[in-house]
């Protein structure tokens, strides 16, 4: 069945417990391109949806190490190579006095990496998304919990998937166009 202009099927649930059970049932049914949309992170939902852990930590570690190296290179080159400064009874490059700035730059670059890395991994900002067309989806940031099976799922069939989501208690189940 051609799903070229369909993005997926979206169902609404009214509690954290309901979305958790629905997510478990949907993945147990063999759907793989499933995601939940919730007003707050629901504990354990990543396992029910069989979604892996975040890789953000690796990005942050790389940024942090870059910050350390950058700080050391900067202070060494500026105060000991390019314009050696003999001051306060210390050598031009005195490592103990470099620690505070090295720490601060490590934190600065790690923090920037954590924030921009998170938005990058989430492919945000993206001001428009097909799922916003769903009639009641505005409540996903208020008090409702949504489950979407995307059309790219090999098991996706608009009629069958709709029926399945209704059978597990989904309300306002609707097909969303891409």
């Amino acid at each position, binding site marked *: 069945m051609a799903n070229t202009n369909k993005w997926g099927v979206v169902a609404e649930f009214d509690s954290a417990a309901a979305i958790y059970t629905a997510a478990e049932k949907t993945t147990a049914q063999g759907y793989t391109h499933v995601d*939940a949309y919730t007003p707050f992170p629901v504990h354990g939902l990543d396992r029910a949806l069989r*979604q892996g852990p975040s890789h953000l930590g690796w990005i942050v570690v790389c940024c942090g190490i870059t910050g350390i190296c950058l700080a050391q290179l900067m202070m060494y080159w*500026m105060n000991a190579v390019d314009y050696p400064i003999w001051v*306060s009874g210390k050598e031009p490059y005195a490592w103990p006095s*470099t620690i505070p700035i090295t720490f601060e730059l490590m*934190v600065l670059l790690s923090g920037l990496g954590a924030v921009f890395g*998170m938005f990058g991994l989430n492919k*945000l900002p*993206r001001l428009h998304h097909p799922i916003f067309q769903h009639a009641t989806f505005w409540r996903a940031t208020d008090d409702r919990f949504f489950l979407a099976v995307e059309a790219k799922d090999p098991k996706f069939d608009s009629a069958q998937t709709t029926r399945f989501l209704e059978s597990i208690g989904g309300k306002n189940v609707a097909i969303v166009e891409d």
Partner: protein
Amino acid sequence: MTAIPVVDEPENPLVRAPLVEGKNDFTSVTNIIAGVAERKTPRGWYLMFGISVALLLNLGAMIGYLVFNGVGVWGNNVPVAWAWPIVNFVFWIGIGHAGTLISAVLFLFRQKWRTSINRASEAMTIFAVMAAGIFPAIHVGRIWVIYWVFPLPNQMAMWPNFKSPLLWDVFAVSTYFTISALFWFVGLVPDLATFRDRAAKAGRTIAARAYGVFAFGWTGSNRHWINYEKAYMILAGLSTPLVLSVHSIVSFDFAVSLVPGWHTTIFPPYFVAGAIFSGFGMVLTLMIPARQWLGLHELITLNHLDNIAKILLLTGTMVGYAYGMEFFIAWYSGVEYEQFAFINRAIGPYAWAYWIMIGCNVISPQFFWIRSLRRSPMVLFVISIFVNIGMWFERFVITISTLNRDFLPSSWGYYSPTLIDILTYAGSFGLFFTMFLLFCRFLPILAISEVKGVMPEANPHHGHGHDDHHAHAQHAHAHAHH
């Protein structure tokens, strides 16, 4: 203003007090918090905003006057060359630290009560750091060459001296501001999405677009939440040592010098404890009226205020211990200059400032040993004002009463601020309150998604009955499938 009755029930120590009181669900939490920004602007807000903006304009005028005339318009003069600007800088940056403590340290310790106050406290941090940053920037004298503090090529073909604690401060404070602002923004994104969706639903197109741009297209996708929670935890983990480093480095500005009364190893922890103390004082000063005027009693409960009062008691006592220990070490060291510096603080020309400091910082929080006083918003508010005053005087005592009597009695002097000093300081409150009032008016003042996340119904096993065993068994069953 409608008075909302609050039941102050006796605590059962075996049961955790609820973090959200009253009959609230997710819908009502959204309505309460979004309602603050959606309802018609109260007249009182215009009044306070008008006063704040007037003070802010006064700050601009004072800075302009200073730049045209030079730092001679202030009372700074030898021997007290470091005067109100550094006092005000340390005062404001210290206030900022409570916001980071609440958002990061309490997060790492899983103190869920933080959710009711973390957003406003983080906002307070950012605005306080802005107010703080002004003072070192304008007190350099020639503000047009302020970029010399950064490692940028300049007309002298020189680089900054990285061995100076003042330069460490540049890096510490600018990193602190950047990370605090990012942390705050990351926390805001899901709540801005809530505001966006409500505005769009209500047909307020301009508001929906404005909130929408800053919400970055947040959908609440669980894949996004996974990365989001990771980022939040990493930022909390980074901010915790950061906040300790910032005030330690601020204290190095003093401690690395050779001035008796400043050259002590106790300074970093003593400054950090004082910063947390002053910041929690300001949190109470801001949140008690906000809670009252904006009807947030069920979200910022008496239990929350009680917890803040306990932290004030703890940190106030730590600060008192540091005051005592400074005296002890001065005596124990046998260095007569150290001894003179401290005796001069307590009975010298600035003794009045010293005893204001002791009264406000050490004595006033001791009232919080009494439970009923910890749970009285009026008492808390009054003591929080004392804490703010006391902590400003602490920095005044450290800076001015140390410098006014130099090694050479011939250069002793008595420092007094000028009118420009006083108006500039008042102006920094204008900046702080202007920003804070704009925040209260247009942004989610409480972290909506986080408050929902600590409610009992947020647990996916809520409503499975009270049979925990059953819920766990089901969970284990789900795992076995993987």
